[in-house]
């Protein structure tokens, strides 16, 4: 017995040893590429396209970060992770940043030793059912069989929702979104529940999306954001402000089309100048060069461009900005000042 315990400890110690190195920025620079943990396939958020190139809203955050740090948005190694292994992968140092529609919660931020660097999508948990069932409210789901990804906040919300409404359900635990899709379409579960954005994305990949409805109830708050390891504040700052740069760029009207022009010489707007490095020394304060933010924005566009390109109303996923509009337009997306 002793031997087995210590072999287990050896494995964990090996993993932990890799994670203990403090300066992620130096590691990334030395490696020449960014290791980014993403979902193993969620249309619009992270999925390889026909050429095997990862595309999506979460993927774009990593590309922007790679552009800011390494100057090359393609210098990213994407690591597809299931919900069960994502935190271990981050803690062990296998990835530098986790951009995998992960909900920011108190215990994850503190007990699990993650540092969420912001929110890139404000979401909530919803339910999807086949139209032919004729269900109009989540409270009609008494006795239903529900497909649920294990190790998620949605799993806990689901248990709470059914218990507080005093109705029963049968959970079918699954590992990946693809598996959920297959089980749901085969009718092995009546309901698929996850974040509403995930439902929209999953439905968009169905053969007949209109045969399925997303129920009106949103049963939880799911602020989704990228996370880094707790303890390396320099790296967390870089990641946080890269995301903020994308958000601020939309607010300031800096797009992938005009960023080169605006960044060439100081403009009349000092905040744009500070963001793009033509004024002040913001880049040096986080250990990067002056035009780090310009490169991040040029990688795929500002926050609004990324949203419209990957998951916006004109894509098959068709998500409206809603809560994810800029604060100036009534949404919650807000970057602190670049100053």
């Amino acid at each position, binding site marked *: 017995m002793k031997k087995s*315990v210590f072999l287990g400890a050896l494995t964990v110690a090996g993993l932990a040893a890799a994670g203990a190195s403090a300066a992620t920025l130096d590691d990334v620079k030395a490696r020449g590429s960014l290791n980014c943990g993403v979902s193993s396939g969620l249309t619009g958020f992270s999925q390889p396209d026909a050429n095997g190139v990862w595309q999506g809203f979460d993927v774009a955050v990593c590309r922007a970060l790679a552009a800011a740090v390494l100057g090359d948005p393609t210098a990213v190694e994407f690591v597809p992770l299931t919900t*069960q292994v994502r935190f271990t992968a981050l803690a062990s140092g296998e990835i530098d940043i986790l951009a995998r529609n992960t909900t920011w919660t108190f215990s994850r931020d503190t007990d699990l030793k993650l540092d969420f660097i912001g929110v890139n999508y404000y979401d909530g948990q919803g339910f999807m059912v086949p139209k032919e069932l004729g269900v109009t409210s989540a409270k009609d789901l008494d006795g239903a069989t529900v497909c649920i990804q*294990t190790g998620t906040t949605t799993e806990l919300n689901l*248990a709470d929702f059914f218990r507080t409404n005093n109705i029963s359900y049968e959970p079918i635990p699954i590992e990946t979104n693809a598996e959920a899709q297959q089980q749901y379409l085969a009718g092995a579960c009546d309901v698929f529940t996850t974040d509403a954005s995930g439902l929209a994305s999953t439905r968009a990949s169905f053969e007949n999306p209109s045969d399925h409805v997303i129920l009106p109830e949103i049963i939880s708050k799911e602020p989704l954001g990228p996370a880094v390891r707790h303890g390396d504040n320099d790296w967390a700052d870089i990641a946080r402000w890269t995301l903020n740069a994308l958000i601020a760029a939309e607010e300031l009207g800096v797009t992938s089309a005009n960023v080169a022009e605006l960044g060439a010489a100081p403009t009349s707007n000092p905040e744009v100048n500070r963001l793009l490095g033509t004024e002040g020394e913001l880049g040096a304060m986080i250990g990067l060069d002056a035009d780090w933010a310009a490169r991040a924005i040029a990688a795929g566009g500002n926050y609004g461009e990324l949203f419209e390109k990957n998951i916006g109303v004109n894509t098959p996923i068709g998500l409206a900005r809603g809560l994810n509009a800029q604060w100036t337009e009534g949404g919650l997306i807000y970057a602190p000042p670049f100053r």
Partner: protein
Amino acid sequence: MTISTDPPTQGFRLSQLIYDTRYRSYTIQVIAAILIVLGLSWLASNTVENLTALGKSFSLDFLGKRSGYDINQRLIEYDSNSTHGRAALVGILNTLLVAVLGCVTALILGVFFGVLRLSNNWIVSRLASVYVEGFRNVPLLLWIIAIFAVMTEATPSPRDFRGDDPAASMLLGDTVAVTNRGTYVPEPLFANGLGDVAVNPPGVFSDLYFEISLDLVVIVLTLIASFLVVKLVNGRAARIQNATGDRPNTFWTNLAIIVVPTGLLLWVLGFYLGYPELKGFNFQGGTHIRNSLLALWLSLSLYTGAFIAEIVRGGIQSVSKGQSEAAFALGLRANRTMSLIILPQAMRVIIPPLISQFLNLAKNSSLAIAIGYMDVRSTLGGITVNQTGRELEGILLVGIFYLLLSLIISTGMNWFNNRVKLKER
């Protein structure tokens, strides 16, 4: 003149530790022991150090906290308000369930196909070979996923049973429903049941509470008593046979002793079957055997059965041909020769490798995670670890559980082996 000299007596020299065979083994053992202790302490200190670096401590407190998640297959009472420890227990019972079911079925399949493989009938022996080679040469994980996929995709969903002209219908006189969520079979119920007795262990074991059905206890006790009486009857028959040479026919008496008291008891308890019925989204009532359990059970049995078949074949072939020839010469038929002469002798060759196969099956059940069967790897080692962030503790506990399970299985099988092995007197 003789000169006698004593052999030179020299004190112990350090070089003897290396060059003297009397001491060299001690040297080697001491060095090895030091290295092992150093290695282990390095591992321990490294673990502690890195846990501190990550800001984590080693603690099993999480087992007492509220789990917050639901589990579909529960052999004991559990809901999302129960603790993580309770969730682990539910998982452990699910693992044990599939392991026991799997071992029994694998043994039956293995013996059956192992014997068939030696058949003189060409087609029968070839079919058995196809089974053995097909199952043991394809990874188990593929079989689990394939069987689960077939069960999910090829069976009707509960909604197909609805309507005036349903696309699917129940089997065996509307008592069994095969759906893509599992098979619903009638469940035994008691109109005048005796209820349950709750067992609540004190202190740290308070999570281990469970309920025992008194009906089940009474029925089992009655059956045991019946079998004891049958044993008495058989003993008396043997004595009469020894004394007179005639054995009285005990078959009908024994049958009555077993059936009548249990039957009476069932009648008194008001035994009836609860049939599954389509209500709302799913079938309600009856016993729900989930597809994840069925698929795992079936694939584990078929896979391990293929290995056991080879072990059984090897065991049978190790018994000298003269034994069966002698049995035939005495006029025994082929199946009696097999069960009375060959198999008992083959057992001593079969059982030791059989232990390994049972151990394999028990450990392979952790592949349940692929199809969402909630075994201990999925509850304690999966969801709990993920929701609490206690990877080291969780995986250690799962590892210790499998280790204990394996040790118990092999102890039990070794005891059985000692009982059935040829006693040389």
